[in-house]
């Protein structure tokens, strides 16, 4: 008797919960936060999710955007395309979200894009694969991280500055890994240089000695990689054991504190790690840093992707404000460049932007992660930081700003 009543109550509640979204839909905008909470992206995913929630709170506290409150539904990609597709389907079909924010790895973004495109939703990511720009046919996809191609250009710039003459490359066989080394090779050979040896390797191998041997046979003075943490750990150990003396230039997601922890300071000494850095002098970054520190106990600099996902919500909300009440997703999407790119009065927070938009002024949101000037592909171009590992610490040496992508 008791239990059947319980079931009845539960059913009634479930029915009420199902009905509620339908009623509220008009006054709210639904965001799916699809982050790598577990898997290879797990050092970053939880912080990215937190940053989205912080930004949503900020927007809602300022009275919402375009007359609507933001509502967030969170899901985990597990850093795996299959799991991400299931999660995206759930967000789209069950939660009826209007934008999916915060996918991390390129494989995941490329898998989720066809779904968001078909449903006409806004997709925002921090992935690097150049293919994302090409596949984005409806201009609904926004990238807050530098492309792998630009990472490659930055690598070439660094190699030139440090007077390397015989670079070799090693790439993990996927869109992102090869994007890095292809970008490097393109920029390096355009500058008149020659790449002496290159190898593309498969994931999940017990050893990369033979692959290393291929590149080392050409006696490179530096090896540029498009690699990830597990494979880097394996081949860097094997490289050290082989007694070679060349230098390394790697992306920051491979050469990070985890790598130093796994291999120790001796192996990683002198390794050059390149990553995008947030707009650390911008007021928007300072606000975000304070909020993030309060929420997580860690500074925003500990997770470069968190600032990017924070900016996703703010620029989306500003676009909603600019598009006005009752705008549909397409109309909102068309305003994202307007509120983020120059020209316009520079603003550094949602509230600032909202009040200027209210006075019919043109604004240019400068984000916590970068200036957020989207090119014709919807790609932002953050600056790069160059770090060298010294005695087990990543020490920042210089910054590199590339010219915005032209032509292409």
């Amino acid at each position, binding site marked *: 008797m008791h239990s059947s009543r319980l079931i009845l109550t539960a059913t009634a509640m479930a029915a009420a919960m199902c009905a509620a979204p339908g009623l509220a839909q008009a006054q709210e905008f639904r965001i799916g936060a699809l982050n790598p909470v*577990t*898997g*290879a992206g*797990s*050092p970053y995913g939880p912080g990215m999710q937190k940053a989205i929630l912080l930004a949503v709170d900020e927007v809602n506290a300022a009275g919402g955007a375009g007359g609507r409150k933001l509502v967030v539904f969170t899901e985990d990609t597990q850093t795996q395309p299959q799991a991400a597709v299931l999660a995206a389907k759930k967000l789209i079909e069950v939660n009826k979200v209007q934008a999916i924010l915060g996918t991390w790895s390129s494989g995941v973004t490329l898998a989720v894009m066809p779904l968001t495109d078909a449903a006409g939703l806004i997709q925002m990511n921090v992935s690097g694969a150049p293919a994302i720009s090409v596949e984005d046919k409806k201009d609904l996809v926004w990238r807050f991280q530098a492309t792998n191609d630009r990472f490659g250009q930055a690598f070439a710039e660094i190699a030139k500055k440090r007077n390397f003459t015989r670079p070799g490359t090693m790439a993990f*066989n996927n869109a992102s890994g090869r994007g890095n080394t292809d970008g490097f090779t393109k920029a390096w050979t355009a500058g008149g240089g020659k790449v002496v040896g290159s*190898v*593309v*390797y*498969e994931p*999940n*191998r*017990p*050893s990369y*000695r*033979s*692959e290393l*041997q*291929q590149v080392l*046979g050409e006696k490179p003075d530096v090896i540029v990689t498009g690699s990830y*943490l*597990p494979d880097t*750990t*394996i081949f860097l*150990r*094997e490289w*050290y*054991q*082989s*007694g070679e003396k060349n230098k390394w230039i790697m992306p920051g997601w491979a050469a990070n504190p*985890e790598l130093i922890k*796994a*291999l*120790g300071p*001796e*192996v990683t000494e002198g390794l050059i790690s390149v990553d995008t850095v947030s707009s650390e002098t911008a007021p928007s970054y300072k606000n975000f840093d304070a909020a993030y520190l309060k929420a997580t106990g860690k500074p925003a600099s500990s997770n470069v992707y968190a600032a990017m996902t924070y900016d996703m919500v703010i620029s989306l909300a500003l676009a909603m404000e600019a598009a006005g009440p009752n705008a549909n997703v397409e109309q909102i999407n068309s305003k994202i460049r307007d509120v983020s790119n120059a020209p316009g009065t520079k603003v550094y927070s949602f509230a600032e932007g909202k009040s200027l938009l209210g006075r019919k002024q043109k604004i240019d949101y400068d984000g916590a992660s970068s200036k957020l000037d989207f090119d014709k592909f919807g790609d932002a171009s953050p600056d790069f930081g160059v770090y060298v590992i010294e005695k087990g610490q990543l020490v920042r040496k210089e910054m590199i700003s590339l010219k915005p992508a032209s032509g292409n």
Partner: protein
Amino acid sequence: MVGFFNLLINGLIEGLIIALPALSLTLVMGINRFPNASAGDTMTFGAYAALGLQYAGVAFFSFAVMGSLIAGALLSWLCYRLVFQRLSRAPMVASLIAAIGIGFMIRSVIGLVAGHDLHTFSLPLVRAWNFDGIRVLPTDLAIAGVALALLILVFCWLKLSPSGRQLRAIADNPDLAKLSGIRPQRLMGMLWLLSGALCASGGVLLGMKAVVMPELGWEMLLPAFAAMILGGIGQPLGAVVGAVLMGIAQELSIPIVGPSYKIAVAFVVMLLVLMVRPGGLFGHVEKVR
């Protein structure tokens, strides 16, 4: 020439590591007659067990490895008693699916307990010995030594001890073995303990060379299966030779086809062998059921 020898050494070491789970697979396949898809995750379990013991402060790495072999053996035995024994009269597919399920479970529990971050064994990093460009890693020698010792031990047991002989009798013809008074119960327990220890040792050796992650062993299942088939299903020596052969073929092909296609080459070798000898290197067609 120097490059050739280096590739040969790499292939040999990789092959020897794969030989351990391949041997475990082929033993179970020959006697219980199903592909034990949880073998890969038993490898992972072994690697994490050694890692756990090391974190817990076990002084010598060899003690941690011993502990991990025992843990792997017990896990495998438990799986047999709780699941596979009950399914022994069911069709082969039932055991196969159950094994896949157990593998998933082991992997998920490891992920839940230890997280998805990568781990490494804390071992001293040593430079390779350089013989005129032919580089030999002391750790590789240790890996090869341990793998070979284990393999020899298993072969001695199978060929020389009474229980090994009885096990081979069951593999040959279970009904005839029963009629001649062999009681399979105790033997099965030993078989599964051995199978688990082999997997765990493969996992530890792989973890020493690569990195320890929850997917470590699962990724090695396919090569181990291939080695078993190449050698002839149910043929212990075949599994080992098959694994080493595929390892060497794959590495030696690198200068010709590049690292991305080396895995395919290993399978091409397998196809060619099976075309000439459909039962595998050491197998006979009529014995494959």
